């Protein structure tokens, strides 16, 4: 089986972003960037399938600026075989990203496309589902377990009430949740070897995809500030605070 994994370069998940004073967006200059955490789980799942003899080729695709090379290299160091960077400046909507990935999938003809379930910058949680729709393939979102069974997959999904396991035929799109696996940290030799792996740079124009934005972002605002409260000194004071809150609830 051939696997295509989509990865995104985002503001590192540990950074607490600040909204720009002019409210045009969040401050991304001089901010640490890294691979979207969910995508790391997708890459790890692909590499694990390769190691288990279930997948023979893993192709990484990222859509973003030149620097997104870094996250492709991270994925190659984890064990993927080759990379494609679709170079794009500025913000792309998820629909445009899905269309570009569809074009990449049409060229690469993978049996499985793996993606993170959401990117921690725009928190959209769209692209896998959109791509599956555009390809007319089945989708298994929010995966916390993937098993190859016969000619298809059994995927355990994290849902509202707990977990559900579904069987889907291939080709398919699967989006990774954080409990899918423990992504490996590639050692230095793997990082060195990753630099020898093929990495193709493509321009968006080559794909002839309509990427014009559909939504207008009027402004980006900071969330309302919470005022810190007070430290209570003991359990009886805490219990009193709770009962005061409860009696307010009852009068609502």
């Amino acid at each position: 089986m051939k696997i295509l994994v989509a990865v995104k370069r985002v503001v590192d998940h540990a950074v607490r972003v600040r909204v720009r004073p002019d409210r045009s967006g969040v401050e991304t200059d001089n901010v640490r960037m890294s691979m979207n955490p969910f995508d790391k789980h997708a890459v790890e799942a692909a590499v694990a399938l390769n190691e288990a003899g279930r997948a023979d080729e893993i192709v990484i695709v990222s859509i973003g600026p030149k620097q997104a090379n870094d996250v492709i290299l991270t994925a190659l160091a984890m064990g993927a075989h080759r990379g494609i960077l679709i170079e794009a400046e500025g913000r792309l909507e998820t629909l445009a990203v899905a269309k570009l990935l569809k074009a990449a999938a049409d060229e690469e003809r993978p049996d499985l496309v793996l993606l993170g379930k959401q990117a921690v910058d725009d928190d959209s949680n769209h692209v896998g589902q959109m791509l599956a729709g555009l390809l007319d393939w089945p989708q298994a979102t929010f995966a916390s377990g993937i098993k190859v069974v016969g000619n298809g997959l059994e995927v355990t999904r994290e849902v509202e009430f707990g977990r559900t396991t579904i069987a889907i035929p291939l080709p398919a799109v699967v989006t990774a949740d954080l409990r899918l696996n423990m992504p490996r940290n590639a050692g230095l030799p793997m990082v060195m070897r990753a630099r020898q792996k093929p990495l193709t740079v493509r321009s968006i124009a080559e794909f002839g995809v309509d990427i014009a934005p559909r939504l207008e972002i009027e402004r980006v605002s900071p969330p309302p500030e919470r005022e810190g409260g007070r430290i209570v000194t003991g359990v009886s004071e805490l219990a009193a605070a709770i009962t005061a809150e409860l009696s307010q609830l009852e009068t609502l």
Partner: protein
Amino acid sequence: MAVLVLAEHDLGTLSASTARIVAAAAELGAVDVLVAGEGVDQVTIAAAAIAGVAHVRVAQSAELNGLSAEALTPLLEHLAPDYTHVIAAAASVGRDVIPRLAAKLDLMPVTDVIAILGPNRFERPIYAGNAIETVTSNQPRHLLTIRASAFRPAAQGNAALIEPVDASGVVAVARFVAAHRTEGDLPDLSTAQIVVGGGVSLGSAEKFALVEQLAGKLGAAVGATRAAVDAGYAPNDWQVGQTGKIIAPDLYIAVGISGALQHLAGIQGAKKIIAINSDPEAPLVKLADYALVGDLFEIVPALIAELERLGVKR
């Protein structure tokens, strides 16, 4: 303007968030609710009882059991032309199907909506809630998922018209294999008035019961951090945060939770926050309305006893 709301339901019960989604949708136009699946009579009746619903459209088919995106998408594609807005809760079914539907209709969806500013203007959080985007959509149709916790529920007592929808052509691609449901009769976490959350510091599934006891005393739902879920102390559907459930209770009691930004993403809507933590520097202690600094294993049992003594019962 007419709005179609996709009802989320499980085991013959309508999701508690539906009344909130309907209330939000009613800001946009006349609301119809789509109920899909087999054996959905109770769900249909519950949906028809929500104030503001004009019609409940029922698509009966075994192929729609499990509410898979592959089966729901063509059904919604077929119904969408009747509506200016197609809306679902920002929960597992809505998150799964709305983007797929959007791609099929060549529309850009607006998801996790927390405020409706007009028929085509919405607010949604980004970066784990550290920024709020105000977006305008000039598309012919709007596909939305809405955060139930950001809206108050519509009243009950309606008797909306019920009408069937043809679902004979719908085919499920995914085959159901198994489900693991978290047992118990706790209030629904996403819409609970009070939530008690526990962190990884509880140390084991057995000791996590302390959080559940305090919740039981207060009639509260139970939440957990990702770290607590990853460690196996709490089921995944209790996770609160950027990748878990978003809650907006009147009172949130955080027991041994540091307050990582991904956890805070899930509790921004809480009216009052109480933190119990041994570290006075923990972010959640700093932002709580009331914080008690100390060992949770001493504090929580004493707190339960004190609430008992005060005769608190819910």
